[in-house]
């Protein structure tokens, strides 16, 4: 068995297209996970049971079931309910929703980590509740959780190949298509495998450096 470098060359244009799709999915999915996670975290601190309970139940459920099955659920069930979305949008929704249940925990820990004295000081200054959150608590909480959020971006990157299962042509999808057309299986999958390490490893080094700077 020889490794055919010309096949690598043939695969490269498709590969780059896959990289772009992967990064798009990752960027949009991350934004959604960050935003939705914050919503969950705040809802779980609500004084209303009717808000707290359903949100906790939903996030527990989503976090403890496989992303792949959730993607299938969105992809196949939503149209039955009359909502038809492209594979790409479905993928971003699935990834973002799944990881929002993790980022919610991160935010929660970050908010809990803000010293009680900060709340007391805000109260002593008669700051309104919204102002307390926006100006005092969240800026401190989010600063602390940036590295942890970054780790989930890397985790999302590694889960993004699942999206090929609903037809998104990200890196793995391209490799699969290429290998089924040319039978150059070894080359395509190896290129994609190495690409992941090349992206994820520097990213995790970067995060560790960031963590040292932000979290003391």
């Amino acid at each position: 068995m020889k490794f055919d470098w010309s096949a690598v060359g043939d695969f490269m244009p498709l590969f780059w297209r896959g990289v772009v799709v992967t990064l798009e999915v990752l960027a949009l999915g991350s934004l959604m996970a960050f935003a939705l996670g914050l919503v969950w975290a705040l809802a779980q601190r609500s004084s209303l049971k009717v808000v707290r309970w359903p949100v906790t139940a939903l996030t527990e459920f989503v976090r403890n079931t496989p992303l792949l099955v959730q993607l299938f659920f969105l992809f196949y069930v939503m149209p039955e309910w009359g909502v038809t979305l492209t594979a790409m949008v479905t993928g971003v929704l699935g990834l973002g929703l799944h990881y929002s249940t993790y980022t919610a925990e991160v935010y929660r820990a970050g908010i809990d980590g803000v010293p009680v004295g900060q709340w007391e000081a805000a109260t002593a200054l008669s700051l309104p509740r919204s102002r307390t959150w926006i100006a005092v608590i969240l800026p401190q909480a989010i600063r602390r959780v940036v590295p942890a959020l970054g780790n989930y971006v890397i985790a999302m990157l590694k889960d993004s190949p699942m999206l090929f299962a609903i037809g998104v042509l990200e890196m793995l999808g391209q490799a699969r298509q290429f290998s089924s057309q040319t039978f150059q299986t070894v080359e395509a999958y190896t290129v994609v495998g190495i690409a992941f390490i090349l992206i994820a490893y520097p990213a995790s080094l970067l995060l560790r450096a960031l963590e040292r700077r932000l979290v003391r």
Partner: protein
Amino acid sequence: MSDISWGLWKLLLNGVWITVQLTVYSAALGVVVAFGIGIARTHRLRIVRFLSGAYFEIFRGTSALIFMFWVFFVLPLAFGWQLVPMWAAVLALGMTYGAYGSEIVRGAIAAVSPGQREAAIALSFSPAQQLRKVILPQAWPEMVPPFNNLAIELLKGTALVSLLGVPDIAFGAQLVRNATTRSAPVYTIILVMYFVLAFVLTRGMRVVERHAKAGIGQAPPKRAGLTTTLSIGKQTSPIGPVARTAAGPTTGAATEGEA
């Protein structure tokens, strides 16, 4: 749901059995890898630390699904190793999640108070005895909660094998969907199935944790609130940060002065 016949139910239940087997076998391999690599990463020889660290970094940077594809499609072509799909899946899952587990093991070992190792040295225990009698028994209870999180990630990860034709729950769902031409019932059912499996897993690990804590004279942890009833709560992180938290808090029970 009535349109799912008994035959299709059987398909799904067989899928549950396959998923359970996959989880158990992969976890077994994963535990071996986690301890092997995790302990090697604390070895006093630099070369051992480097190689085991490289293993960890490579698998941390690798997507489990892509590695699985690689084992399925590239290994047979490139090296002529053709594995039964089930075992290829176990190999891929065990090696990947074992790598994450190694960080839990390494972190828990590092969190044992240095005084414990010193006391073991002062009693002339050999390095292997230090590890077996003193360090690991104390590190173990610290590992159980993060291992629980990791086990749930592994359970979720087993769904990937359906893409490679292993007839697990998710694979069964595809067949049922094709047969009934309806998606909502079957996908709802299998999501609940996964959730129940995760619940059972967490309950089991809770028992393990209680035993582990009792084994070093600590009271079992108290938990309260909704997440206790749901019982799967309190897992703050998936794979990446799981590893980090493992290195976090230390108990070092003996060093904390008065009991």
